[in-house]
């Protein structure tokens, strides 16, 4: 248990460093799509919500099911909406057409 937590902390730390390095390189041009994309990725929390809503619970099963189901709805709408709008925005970014002679 204790070791697991320590591993999790390592994972968090490394991911934070990777996050800083990768995201620092994102051009300010794309900061709005960046935010909507990270928002969609963040909705991976749906994984926890699915387990909560679907697993067997000996007690307070109703509470888990209700909260889990609402949580899935919230996260799924972020996934679907987030990816959709990010792609729509990115589609609009076009480079200058090459100069015609």
């Amino acid at each position, binding site marked *: 248990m204790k070791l697991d937590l320590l591993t999790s902390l390592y994972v968090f730390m490394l991911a934070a460093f990777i996050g800083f390095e990768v995201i620092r390189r994102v051009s300010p041009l794309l900061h709005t799509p960046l935010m909507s994309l990270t928002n969609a990725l963040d909705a991976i929390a749906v994984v926890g919500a699915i387990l*909560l809503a679907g697993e067997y619970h000996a007690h307070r099963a109703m509470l888990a099911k209700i909260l889990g189901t609402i949580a899935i709805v919230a996260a799924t709408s972020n996934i679907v909406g987030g990816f959709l709008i990010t*792609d729509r925005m990115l589609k609009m970014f076009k480079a200058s057409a090459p100069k015609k002679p």
Partner: protein
Amino acid sequence: MTNLPGLEYVIEVTYLIATALFILSLKWLSSPTTARRGVFAGELGMLLAIAGTLLHQGIVEYKWIVIALVLGTIIGVPLGEVAMTAVPQRTALSHAFGALCVTLVGTAEFYLRTPDVPRFMMGVLSLEVILGSLTFTGSLMAAGKLQEVLPQRPITYKGQNIVNLGLLGVAIVVAGMLVAHPEKTQLFPLIVGIPLLFGVMMIIPIGGADMPTVISLLNSYAGLSAAAMGFVLDSKLLIIAGALDGASGLILSVNMSKAMNRSFTNVLFGAFGQEQAAAAGKQETRPVRSATPEEAAAILAAANKVVIVPGYGMAVAQAQHKVRELYDALTKRGVDVKFGIHPVAGRMPGHMNVLLAEADIPYDKLLDMDEINGDFPQTDVALVIGANDVTNPAARTDASSPIYGMPILDVDKARTVMVIKRSMAAGFAGIDNPLYYLDKTLMLFGDAKSVVGSIVRELGGGHE
């Protein structure tokens, strides 16, 4: 976790691949040429992770999961199809949804696990729930202000920061008591309820121009709360996704606070509400030179290099498509047109870029403040559309100005400056802009869309 049966391995591998795809997704987002591939990688990772999760043997009932997934999709599609001008409020709303999910899962986990919650676990769980709930109401408030269903005006009162910090302090103390006594379930509603209230109070003093910072900060909170949820559920995938989102929000918040010349601690504690920029009294009486669209068109047509500086006023007036026509008309005459974009122009980071890209302006013409500032001395005309404080030279020269030290676009170094503005009213910060009284500055009063439209007509007329 020690003895994984076969299926568990499969699930863990899908999570591993999903994690790699998420990191690649953000990496590919660094350039517009690869960015769409990034979205695809993210979608694939998400699909794999969800499919993997559904394979879990522990799941005994699928009915509600399926209903919820379908319902979420039904809500998500329209949220993905909002107009580009509504993107800031949509983003705020999605932060609220993300935070809602995290808070609900955290709450359920607490009631399922109490009274045997290890100390560290209870600590992270509290963090998850506190950050989640304050982000939920905070983001809803921000979305409401951006959508203008709530008053946009910042509401301030004496001792606001003390009240807010006090609220947060109480929530943290209660969380501490829960860490010591996780069986005291009656305390738990407090670490949901108080942050919910705090989220509202935190956004009340925020005005429109502070929104880019606030949205970034809420983004960061949403990410951190998801990472905390990853600790609670022992999900590495969630920890990583949350850390990436948290890092992204933090970088953007730091960028925004730098661009507004506010200290980061000022931002971090939510104390970014206006320190009422007691509009340095003295009414300006100096004359300004105003010009007609015809005169502006003549000057623009004769220029070699033009830099357009858009601000929130352009978004409000929905002038981006007219600006595109202006860009076309000038480019056709051989004028070199670029756009200079301040990091906090608009209501969220990158807002102006999205609007201009929507209007089909090539992205290589959209330049960041640092890229464009060196160009102004060689620029014939700097055309400011609906931007104010970000062009105020007082930020560079007048140490007594409330915005002194804020990095600005040096439009005053261009040979001629044109400002399209509805009236002489001061900008968001309530500070007069000396730019308008320069000899080289021409004021074009009116709605951005109609003024740009008239200039385009003049240019078109002269051409044909």
